[in-house]
């Protein structure tokens, strides 16, 4: 693990890896998202019960899923930063946090818009809504802790510890809230997987959803990579290699 990781402790190596990875996330992400959105919002059949308003699922579900996924990613970066003391992992952690927070916000926002016509209310204290809201608070806590320190290195380390504590807590919070109250419909995709013989979602709706899922991942990962590269350049701005890149306009 260390042998595999340690070249990327050097910011320049991470920068170059990121430059190579970026197109592999950005372009498929943009294309998949465009295809998935047009497919889902225009061509997928309307739901027999919810009509056209169900179409927001194509934004709601991917953002909700990756909101949780990026938090785990953030905690993994934090673990790498703590165990191997790699600075770039600390920067990666802080590059992920705002993207994840925005995803969480999008999922809450689209959920409210969807909830209004379907449940007749913008917000209810349902388990999945509540645990998503708490996830937003956890993201905000990590970001607030980071900016509270004058020394950014200390701030990133502290935020990393908080992210790891949070990731242990997320399942506990999730299941306690679930136990507390639930009204939200079950997860369509996991039902799809577990009940293959009688799927709950027809294929012509599921496919655009899956396309969007990977589109969201690609675009958000690209955003994280770009944020991380900006951060690397900002920190290393006095180093010869960074000056060469900045002057070369790459």
């Amino acid at each position: 693990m260390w042998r595999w990781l340690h070249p990327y402790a050097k910011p320049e190596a991470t920068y170059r890896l990121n430059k190579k990875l970026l197109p592999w996330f950005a372009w498929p992400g943009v294309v998949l998202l465009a295809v998935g959105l047009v497919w889902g919002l225009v061509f997928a059949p309307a739901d027999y019960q919810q009509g056209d308003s169900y179409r927001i699922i194509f934004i709601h579900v991917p953002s909700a899923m990756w909101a949780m996924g990026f938090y785990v990613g953030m905690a993994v970066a934090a673990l790498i930063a703590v165990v191997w003391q790699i600075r770039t992992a600390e920067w990666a952690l802080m590059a992920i946090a705002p993207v994840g927070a925005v995803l969480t916000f999008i999922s809450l926002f689209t959920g409210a818009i969807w909830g209004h016509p379907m449940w007749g209310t913008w917000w209810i204290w349902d388990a999945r809504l509540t645990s998503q809201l708490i996830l937003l608070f956890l993201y905000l806590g990590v970001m607030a802790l980071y900016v509270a320190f004058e020394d950014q290195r200390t701030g990133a380390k502290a935020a990393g510890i908080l992210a790891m504590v949070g990731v242990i807590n997320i399942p506990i919070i999730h299941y306690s809230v679930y136990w507390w109250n639930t009204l939200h419909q079950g997860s369509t995709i996991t039902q799809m997987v577990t009940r293959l013989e009688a799927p709950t979602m027809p294929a012509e709706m599921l496919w655009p959803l899956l396309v969007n899922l990977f589109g969201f991942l690609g675009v958000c990962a690209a955003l994280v990579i770009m944020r991380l590269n900006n951060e690397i350049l900002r920190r290393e701005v006095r180093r010869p290699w960074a000056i060469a890149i900045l002057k070369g306009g790459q």
Partner: protein
Amino acid sequence: MARVSNTTLLLQLIRRDLRVALRQRSEFLNPIIFLLVVITLFPLAVGPAADTLARIAPGVIWVSALLSAMLGLERMFRDDFRDGALEHMLLLPCPVELAVLGKVIVHWLLTALPLLLISPLLALLLSLPMQALPILIVTLLLGTPVLSAVGAIGVALTVSLNRGGALLSLLLLPLLIPLLIFATAALEAATYNLSAAGPLAMMAAFLVLALGLSPLAVKAALQVSVN
């Protein structure tokens, strides 16, 4: 130098912290008074009808306990950080986790014990049914050590900041939500004469988890803060 056993060291740490705390009594009594004042505000705000109060009592007591804990937490490491004793604690010839556990125990003795003592008064003020009082005491017994242990993580992370107060609540309260859910669930069950064993078992699980894992996180956080 004679080797001191870990238990002796732990007891010495606890004795020292208790002695320091007893010399500045108002520090740990203020949160309890704050709690009483908050509890007094609720009947004034929602009306003194006994059945309304009894219905909201579990939530009010536990939310107030959480908020007052946020006020008292900061002193767990703050003074030691300022006068340098914290660095010595990290250098003690015993596992840092043990010293952290000592801090958590002292904090619990100073904040949760008074709370336990006045809990019958709180139940009375909010007309909580009498059969729920033992359950209230059990939830406090199981829940307050979790508060101290998880709270220690937050304090350790923010101790080097001058303006840590509001931040501390932002970091900790989301993490303590499961505690709130199960404590109030147990109390509500007891109010309706149902068995509260399920939620109480969950709280006991939280207690074990928090006491076992939080010293590790506190240690890491203190090393970042003291650095």
